């Protein structure tokens, strides 16, 4: 696979970039990473947590699951999940660093009202049988990766957002875009 693009993302910093249909976005790190994605040709179509939960009929995104848009279309598929068996990615919480994500997305002129809820990679949660949600800081001890294959042309964005209560490290995150 050819590396199309690489970036290191410091804590409290973000990244935004294009991922073309068929390319793989690899996100590596060990702190909480908030993720959003938009259809490139019409950013009013965006990654949506509720549709993603319902189409996968699952609360914890992992390998094999697809990310869906508000308009009910598939956007990406998770093809590798290095956090599997260590912890769970989060489809329940809001943005840990909303202001930061808004500045990352500034070129798209995304306002607060247009900022969709994120997928929180590496933010481990515990949900009890009664439905109680408990943050359970349990980041990976070493860098792990999650690979997402784009099903359409996308603009993707992350915030390396080590929220105080869940931050294991405040370490850099790494973005790699691969062309199979």
């Amino acid at each position, binding site marked *: 696979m050819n590396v199309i693009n690489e970036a290191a993302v410091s804590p409290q910093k973000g990244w935004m970039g294009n991922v073309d249909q068929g390319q793989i976005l690899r996100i590596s790190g060990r702190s909480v990473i908030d993720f959003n994605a938009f259809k490139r040709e019409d950013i*009013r*179509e*965006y990654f*949506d*947590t*509720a*549709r993603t*939960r*319902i*189409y996968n*009929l*699952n*609360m*914890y995104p992992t390998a094999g699951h697809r990310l869906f848009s*508000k*308009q*009910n279309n598939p956007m990406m598929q998770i093809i590798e999940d290095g956090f599997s068996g260590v912890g*769970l990615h989060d489809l*329940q*919480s*809001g943005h840990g660093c909303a202001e930061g994500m808004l500045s990352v997305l500034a070129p798209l002129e995304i*306002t*607060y*009202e*247009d*900022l969709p*809820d994120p997928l929180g990679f590496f933010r481990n949660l515990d*949900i*009890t*049988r009664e*439905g*109680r*949600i*408990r943050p359970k800081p349990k980041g990976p001890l070493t860098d792990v990766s999650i690979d997402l294959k784009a099903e359409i042309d996308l603009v993707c964005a992350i915030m390396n957002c080590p929220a105080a209560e869940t931050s294991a490290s405040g370490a850099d995150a790494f973005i790699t875009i691969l062309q199979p």
Partner: protein
Amino acid sequence: MRTVKQYVAPKNTGWATEIQAGQVLRLTAQTIIDFVAFDLYDFSEAFDQAPTKEASNCMYLKRGQTLLSRKNTPLMTLIKDEFEGIGTHDLQFGMCGRARHKRAAEEGRLGEYLHGNNMDLPDHGCAENLTGALEPWGIPYENIPSPVNFFQNMKFNQNSGCMERTQIRPKRPVNLELLAERDLLVGFSACPDMASKTRGLDVTATVVEIT
């Protein structure tokens, strides 16, 4: 208590109205209601599932909990819940609708989603009902948040995270009461509720003033 206004939403239709801070919205139903709320003067202050769950640390909406906006502004508080003890209100799902039903049918997953593979699907659902109801206020589909799904009971597996719809609904119409924490625009859809045995019923909405 004085009734300010009342509306009966027929099955698989929507309604929206403005209500004032301190007024109470009573919803009387035994079917799923997809419900959203906005600050009346700033529609960017829209109900948001994620902050609501973060504040309550709970994946269901329960009595005493407050619907929050994306910016953590309190919008409404659930002050009465006659479904309590029977089932739970959902903060996981989005809205049913034409696009969702079409995809489910194409994927051969209607049974998994809706408890039945052979059914006549309506040509619209909550997505279209809420879009239509909120259209007079100029709110497009993409700015309608994922709703509170009242009476949408579901089970989940704590370990796998798998979610399963249930057919648990109130056996007779019961009341929910939501206190407006500020002046609001509220909207809802009387869901066609294709997963239930009834396949949708009317919803009565009453705005009351505590005198």
